[in-house]
């Protein structure tokens, strides 16, 4: 009978449902094991501490939905913190800093997108070059980390918004939620968003249908570049510093969040909401490990690897079932 109730859920929703279940399960496990875990603030902290990862995962979802990949997101995040910190230090007004950072990320995304589309180079290689370039540019600005001392800028990251019940969030959480809502709107209710799914389903078909394949293909990398630089701003609010070694390997966490969130790496199937829940699962695991205190940080990596495996195998089974 259990199988009957499962089969009522369309198979394309199944991975996302599984991700939600996993989130409830990990958070529940934390709540049972630790006294103060099941509080509103711990839940809110998940968003506060992972706002940048959520933003990255949303951008990455666009790219992966088209069947591409963006390895540059962690480096672009670092470059953004670096530009922001250096700009604030040089006395630029904060709005100008924000515009410059977002433009840099979007332009980098645009260049990578154009290389991928116009020259038929694999996204993996192009974004790998982008990853090296952005990371290297951080060190061109400065080898050392730069702390942000501007009071107005710091206030953007430190200010708390009370939600009642003693729970408070930061501006970063609002940014992350806004990005999620915007992405859901774009993916499901605009022509661009539907083309993203069509492109991931089958590029030749999308082309034959007369969809704007080139525009969309370049567009997702611009979206990802924009999200990466926004995540960089969020990260600089959070840490009040810019550093070339910020977010090393963060691209893998973003990819992991997207995969655990139920998006197929082959493209064409998945939801941004799933990616966000995926990012929250990763955050919960980190919280549990820090609550425990005796577990070492490397267990995070091993657990993330194991979860990745579980979800990939789940995808395999679903794909096999629906094609059978």
């Amino acid at each position, binding site marked *: 009978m259990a199988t009957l109730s499962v089969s009522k859920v369309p198979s394309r929703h199944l991975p996302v449902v599984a991700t939600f279940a996993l989130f409830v399960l990990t958070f529940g496990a934390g709540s049972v094991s630790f006294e103060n875990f099941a509080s509103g603030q711990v839940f809110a902290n998940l968003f506060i501490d992972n706002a940048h990862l959520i933003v990255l995962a949303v951008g990455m979802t666009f790219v992966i939905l088209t069947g591409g990949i963006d390895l540059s997101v962690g480096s672009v995040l670092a470059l953004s913190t670096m530009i922001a910190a250096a700009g604030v230090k040089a006395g630029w007004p904060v709005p100008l800093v924000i515009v410059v950072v977002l433009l840099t990320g979007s332009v980098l995304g645009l260049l990578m997108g154009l290389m991928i589309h116009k020259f038929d*180079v694999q996204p993996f290689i192009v974004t790998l070059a982008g990853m090296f370039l952005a990371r290297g540019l951080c060190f061109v600005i400065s080898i050392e980390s730069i702390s942000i001392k501007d009071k107005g800028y710091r206030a953007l990251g430190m200010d708390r918004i009370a939600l009642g019940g003693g729970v408070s969030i930061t501006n970063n959480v609002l940014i992350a939620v806004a990005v999620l809502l915007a992405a859901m709107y774009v993916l499901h209710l605009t022509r661009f968003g539907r083309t993203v799914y069509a492109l991931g389903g089958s590029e030749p078909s999308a082309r034959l249908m007369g969809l704007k394949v080139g525009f969309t293909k370049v567009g997702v990398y611009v979206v990802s570049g924009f999200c990466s630089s926004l995540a960089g701003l969020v990260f600089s609010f959070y840490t009040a510093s810019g550093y070339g070694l910020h977010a090393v390997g963060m691209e893998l966490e973003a990819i*992991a969040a997207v995969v655990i969130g139920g998006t197929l790496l082959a493209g064409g199937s998945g939801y941004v909401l799933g990616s966000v829940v995926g990012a929250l699962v990763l955050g919960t695991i980190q919280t549990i490990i820090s609550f425990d205190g005796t577990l070492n940080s490397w267990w995070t990596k091993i657990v993330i690897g194991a979860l990745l495996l579980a979800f990939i195998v789940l995808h395999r089974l679903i794909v096999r079932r629906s094609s059978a």
Partner: protein
Amino acid sequence: MNRLWWALGALVALLVLNVVVTPSFFSIRMQDGHLYGSVIDILKNGAPTLLIALGMTLVIATRGIDLSVGAVVAIAAAVTCEYIATSSDPGSASTALVGMAISLGLCLVLGLWNGFLVAVLRIQPIVATLVLMTAGRGIAMLVTDGQIITVNNETYRSVGAGFVLLPLAILISVAVLALVAVATRKTALGLLIEAVGVNPEASRLAGVQSRTIIWTVYVFAALCAGVAGLMISSNVSAADANNAGLWIEMDAILAVVIGGTSLAGGRYSLTGTLLGALVIQTLTTTVYTAGIAPEITLVFKAVVVVVVILFQSPKVQALFRRRPKRPVAEVLKPQEVAS
């Protein structure tokens, strides 16, 4: 052949630049029966990358990719050093040999694991190997307990820092290169690998044991990564689970791509991979000798990759050709065939 020229051109340009900056660049001197010089340094420091790139070439030729090699490097280093450091006789040759054998055996298992995910469960290679890439470093840290383990063992040290006229690391990499060249080009193996890369389904129907081939290349890649891990850690007589082989998978993939092997699988070039690995290492060394902060090497690496990739791309190649090739359909007009 055309694609090799770009890699060769990049390498020659870098070498010329080096000679201009340091006129004594090509000088090699003999001291205590060992050869020293900038060129030897490039070859020695590039040996682990070349070794991993060789494994990666075969994986990429089957339309795969192996992201886990950096993590395998860390695991191989961690296991060997942990074994030597905790053994009753940490200085003896036999301890080092047993330690290396155990860690290479483990690498074999890790390769089998990747191969199992790709060949049997038919998971996309990029995700399948991402699992071990993420978890692998965690496992290496578990083995070393998060510490950097230092060992003092002459036999182990010789793998990465030893000399037999030339640094042993160079000789090992060149030997593996020769071995792969003979094994894949003098037998049908290379052809079978390319067949799997061009069309796995068609090659299976044609009777190629594609599953075995795929399994073999992932095991080979993991073994190469293991040996490279031994080289890297023995060169400094220490295992650093966090940093050993960090980003080496990316360097190896770049070496393969600069060498003209397409990520889409099929045709591969071992000469190209050798050239690619040399380009990357020469670039790194050039930046060092030019007195630029080593962190900024990444910018130059990105520029070289973009330039080489763009020139290799079919669309740019088409611009260089004076006349576009006539499509096949036009060449074989029915009346011409009839006459």
